């Protein structure tokens, strides 16, 4: 198929970016979207044009490295997929495709389509863990039974891949879905209880420091989330936050 690509090119964080047009032909429908970009880059190199920079790694929808805002949607058309799982059969010959980076104040652009999502790491560092050393002397795993329903819900929350589609999609650039997923995972498990109050307070505080916006319950994040993380997690986080705000000892 033949396509017209409009791709955001930006030489560096401070440089001025713009959409550049690249016609491309010979795209096959079995190619993934990123393989299509590889194919474009090969042609650009042949022409002596610097290839387009974009983040990617596992190419099977789990590392969370790939991003891209495609035709106005995080990870492009299709639901519950990352960009690497998007295939060209979703497009037709003659289409024009707009490819931009994830945009948010807290995700500064590094180059072209690549953004800096280290704010997510800093939110996790503020409390996204259970304080247990790796001594090998913890109690037997089956000494901590967890009701299956809670374990399954904790797992569902824990499947977040930290890609940032929720932030890129949200009109407020809010990271509530991301933060609430981690907070929920621990909130649903007995192991997470001792630090639950401090965790939610600290992680929400860090989220605000990073410059993410607030949540206005639009729900776009849930729709665009490649892992289908539920809005229910935001409700749980808000409830935990409120409770902790009034009852924390600190």
């Amino acid at each position: 198929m033949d396509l017209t690509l409009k791709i955001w090119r930006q030489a560096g964080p401070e440089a001025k970016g713009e959409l550049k047009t690249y016609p491309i032909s010979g795209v096959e429908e079995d190619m993934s979207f990123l393989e299509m970009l590889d194919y474009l880059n090969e042609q650009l190199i042949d022409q002596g044009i610097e290839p387009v920079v974009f983040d990617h790694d596992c190419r099977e929808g789990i590392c969370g490295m790939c991003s891209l805002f495609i035709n106005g949607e995080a990870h492009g058309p299709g639901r519950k997929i990352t960009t690497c799982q998007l295939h060209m059969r979703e497009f037709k010959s003659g289409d024009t495709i707009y490819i931009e980076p994830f945009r948010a104040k807290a995700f500064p652009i590094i180059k072209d389509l690549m953004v800096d999502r280290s704010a997510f790491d800093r939110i996790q560092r503020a409390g996204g863990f259970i304080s247990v050393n790796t001594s090998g002397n913890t109690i037997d795993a089956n000494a901590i039974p967890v009701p299956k329903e809670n374990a399954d819900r904790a797992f569902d929350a824990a499947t977040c891949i930290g890609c940032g589609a929720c932030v890129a999609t949200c009109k407020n650039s809010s990271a509530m879905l991301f933060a609430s997923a981690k907070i929920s995972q621990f909130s649903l498990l007995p192991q997470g209880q001792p630090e639950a109050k401090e965790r939610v307070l600290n992680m929400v505080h860090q989220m605000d420091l990073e410059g993410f916006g607030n949540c206005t319950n639009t729900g776009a994040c849930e729709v665009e989330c490649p892992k289908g993380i539920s809005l229910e997690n935001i409700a749980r986080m808000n409830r935990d936050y409120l409770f902790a705000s009034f009852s924390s000892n600190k």
Partner: protein
Amino acid sequence: MALDSKIPAGPLGEKWTKHKGEIPLVSPANKRLIDVIVVGTGLAGSSAAASLAEMGYNVKAFCFQDSPRRAHSIAAQGGINAAKNYQNDGDSVYRLFYDTIKGGDYRSREANVHRLAEVSRNIIDQCVAQGVPFARDYGGLLDNRSFGGVQVSRTFYAKGQTGQQLLLGAYSALNRQIAKGRVKMYARHEMQELVVVGGKARGIIAKNLVTGELERHSAHAILLCTGGYGNVFFLSTNAMGSNVTAAWKAHRKGAYMANPCFTQIHPTCIPVSGENQSKLTLMSESLRNDGRIWVPAKKEDAEAIRAGKLHPNDIAEENRDYYLERRYPAFGNLVPRDVASRAAKERCDAGYGVNKTGEAVYLDFAAAIVRYGKEEALVKGVNNPSDTDIKALGEKVVEAKYGNLFQMYEKITASNPYKEPMMIYPAVHYTMGGLWVDYNLMTSIPGCFALGEANFSDHGANRLGASALMQGLADGYFVAPYTVGEFLSKDIRTGAISTDSPEFEEAEKAVRERTDKFINNNGTKSVDFFHKRLGKIMWTEVGMARNEKGLKQAIADIQALREEFYADVRVLGSANGMNPELDKAGRVADLIELGELMAKDALQRNESCGGHFREEYQSEEGEALRDDKNFAFVSAWEFTGVPAEAKLHKEELTFENVELKTRSYK
């Protein structure tokens, strides 16, 4: 240098406990004076960095991804083994040890494998304490499933995302130490060179991938947790960025490379669809718990399917060849990976392949769906269920077990595996070979350690499913943090290591010269052009079946490719700033050298064992013929200037607890 594996004396079951008790300790005050560098933040790296920091060492951790959480351990699907015997099916530390030695076709060290089996139980306890959400049964206790090559259920899992959940657990432990300032994290950094001072590994040259700057980092010990080198085949289930550079730089500085030809070709991957494919996707081995593998029994049916004239669902039961169940009745579809892969290749080579390229077999869930459906109907009290009811109920059960894998498959192939069988074919997945290490996981360069897939030590010639996660976390949480003590206890008076020494100067200069060469090369072909060619050579001649003629050809072809690469590779842009093409060029340069050594290693091993199948050495039935008399050793290669002239050192393997037998799954 003679190879000393430093295996402790004493009975097998007591070696580790005794050794651990005798390793010299470093006092808390002295630990604060000791710096450790950890390269790579997958399961091995994250867990090691977190544990060392907890103990009090100053840790610097490096990863090339934008966050430590994205290392490729994240993509492991099926599960993690542990000898917990929660299912009361007769499992024990000894059985896990035995299965692993046998599964590895008797080419791994008894002492290392037994230690792995021992600490496997701690891993599960540790992970649950960290909040890793493993699958549970209705009583709230942990659930297990079965994996290839074993007859017990010892695999713990979190749907098809076990690697993700374990890595996020290790990442959370790492984050806790980063927040305390005990670990300094360098994301988007790649190790470019190892710095050896006075015969000891004392630092690295790292490149900041965002700015292009080269940085010098010194430490008293360096831990390479940098994963495997499957990307030497270009197409593999590895991540695009997975590479051998850190391990190869260590090899060039004196670390021996062990058993580099031992590669795992995983039997159940989505087949190659076209020339522009960039990677292959695994379908977890756990699917073989319920999926049955088959091809048409009649060649004309296979031909009709390939031509699109026949649908697999229309082939009657008696015209299907469930070749694994036929050839290996005792283990059936759950034979180890190397056996399953070769059997698929054998059928496809014989003309029974089922997709356009003729390189695919079926993995069919229809029988499991009906079996589960009937069970559910009984449990739910559905009277006289119709076939449609049974299928619908059964599909729900299968979805609960493997939902994300089925979804992944459908996204890639646009075919619904609930309704028609999956098509699968073997693909490169894991490398058992790696840096040679002693019992303490130290390479042949003092102070340089290798953990996880980056070392060679535990899986012999074939790794069993769900054992990679086990080994990564065992090395990182429970082995290396203790064994580094033996080396570091002698370093308490050393003080901080300067980065102004001539050794650092020289290492940095070498890196700069390499990058400048690429940038100024003005060639005509992209990096991928060469990488794809390397992959073709490796897959054809150093892949699932190897022979003397092909391997010699491969060595000649790779040498020619290397010359052409340096003469004609084109890297645009500059060395200052973000330049992924330049980074890729450096990685491919190292993969080319490694490929040559792999072929050389495969050529010297005149036997078939595990993933290494030499066509000259097979039984009349086509099974691998091992040669214990002449090849019960680890081949450890010393770099001498070019891969072709690497020097072979042999570490003889002694088996005191297991009898060497022909591996049979019949």
